[in-house]
């Protein structure tokens, strides 16, 4: 992607010149440097101190080396959280959003205009509404006594977010994020040559065979891109905090929620930074594997 458009022989059609071009890029880079790169690097430093929000360690943080990281990987709260985050990403993003997004793109391709617009409109709306509003919409679905799901299933005494917190979060996140996969697969499907689909139909291939043997080879790159992006977004999503705040009893405490609670509620800034660092390394590892796969294909 980065170097997909090679410069033609006319090196600089705009007449900007290198110096002015640097001036154009600089303001953006300064902001990115201060608010993104610097914090990321600083995580490294805070992560090896015993820095706290209040108390003696707030004024004079002491360097404790890798103790925080070692403590984190042995902390049952942290390992529990990593496990929950993995479940959350696997079931809501890699499987849920991917499959539903593709299914919608595939099924709606031949649907009538108004049906297509209605479905796409609703799916997109669930994607763009502010997260705090969306949290209330789902309280109304999942709450006890008056919740819509309880009424539909005839079990109003079930408090879904308390009794089944992780399953609720997974279903919620499929609802919240499928739009992106649907949009991406819709544009990917447009690139599959219609003649090949026609051939598949003529030889009597079933829908599943067509998807597997004709469509999938064309959109493999899109599947990879989509899976990477939605996985990273889901692993770093803070909305679970709005729905369950990690509870009850840490049962839905995904990493972003754990980091927030350790840093701001317990005041353990150093320890929380070490966890952030592990999350950053996880993100980086996933992104690098993806870029390598992409390059091998190219």
């Amino acid at each position, binding site marked *: 992607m980065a170097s*997909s458009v090679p410069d033609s022989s006319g090196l600089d059609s705009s007449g900007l010149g290198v110096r002015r071009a640097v001036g154009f*890029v600089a303001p953006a880079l300064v902001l*990115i440097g201060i608010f993104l790169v610097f*914090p990321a690097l*600083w995580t490294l430093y805070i992560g090896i101190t015993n820095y706290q929000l209040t108390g003696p360690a707030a004024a004079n943080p002491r360097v404790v080396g890798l103790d925080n990281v070692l403590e984190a990987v042995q902390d049952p709260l942290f390992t529990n959280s990593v496990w929950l985050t993995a479940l959350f990403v696997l079931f809501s993003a890699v499987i849920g959003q991917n499959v539903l997004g593709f299914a919608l793109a595939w099924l709606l391709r031949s649907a009538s205009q108004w049906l297509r617009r209605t479905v796409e409109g609703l799916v997109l709306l669930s994607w763009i509404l*502010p997260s705090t509003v969306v949290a209330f919409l789902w309280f109304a679905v999942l709450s006890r006594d008056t919740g*819509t799901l309880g009424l539909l299933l005839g079990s109003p005494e079930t408090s879904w977010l308390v009794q089944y917190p992780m399953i609720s979060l997974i279903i919620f996140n499929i609802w919240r994020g499928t739009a992106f996969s649907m949009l991406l697969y819709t544009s990917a499907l447009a690139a599959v040559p219609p003649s090949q689909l026609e051939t598949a139909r003529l030889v009597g291939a079933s829908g599943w065979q067509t998807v597997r043997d004709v469509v999938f080879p064309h959109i493999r790159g899109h599947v990879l891109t989509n899976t990477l992006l939605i996985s990273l977004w889901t692993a770093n999503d*803070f909305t679970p905090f709005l729905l369950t705040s990690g509870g009850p009893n840490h049962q839905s405490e995904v990493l972003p929620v754990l980091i927030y609670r350790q840093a701001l509620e317990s005041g353990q800034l150093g320890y929380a930074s070490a966890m952030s660092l592990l999350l950053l390394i996880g993100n980086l590892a996933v*992104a690098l594997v993806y870029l390598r796969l992409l390059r091998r294909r190219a």
Partner: protein
Amino acid sequence: MSPLWILRRIGFYVLITVVLAFFAVPMLWLASAPFDSKPGLGLRWPDWTLSNVSATFDHPYTLSSLVNSLILCAIATVVTTVLAALAAYALSRVRIPGRDLLLYLLLLLSSVVTGTAAMVPIFVMMLQLGLINSQFGTALVIAGGMLPAAIFILKDFMDAVPRSYEESARVFGASPWQVLGHVMLPVARPGVATIFVWAFVNAWGNFLLPFLLLRDVGQQPAAVLLRTLYDEGGSANLTVIPVFSLLYSIPVVVLYLFVNKRYGFRFHGGIKS
């Protein structure tokens, strides 16, 4: 019209109905609860009233928080769009030394360093700079987080603009600024509009950063106030929450309808395989 064909049509419509219900049912609350005399966390046919609306306007912080959202969002969106357009243009047209490495790093940064992963250092940095409770500072943090992706998407749009346009403008003696203002930006307008809307929706809905960095209720945007209305005093303020949720959602919905009508909600080759 074989039986199999009919069976498959039925299956198709059942599936689509289930999906439609899944996506629509949660949203019905936003249509019913604001106008119900006894709004609750649940769905029912409302006992119609407008008293919740006046209660919402009487609340001391609702309107000011919407104004705060607008300020925060306007700064973040304008900064992101302008800086990303300048950077994307220069990166698209000029081979600055180290450009490919820079683009590669930006791509990594945009997906790897997230507000959640960097929340502790961002909080500590703003605390030490004395920028806690500063709307401008918070807006810049939000903009900094959006910039890498914005530059990337815009560069794709700018790459698609034929170079011959600028070359002919320059033959007629246009300065680089004139080329940018009168040739590039009008041609790349769908791209700039995409980034503008994308940045606006993101900044408008952002909860974590204002929640971390704006601790004073007078400075907080609607996203944070809505959460406070839920937590405050141990029980949710259900007369105000539904109407306020609706008011807070309107700008995003209007923007969505506008984009949908004007450009259509599609990926225009912005994402390549």
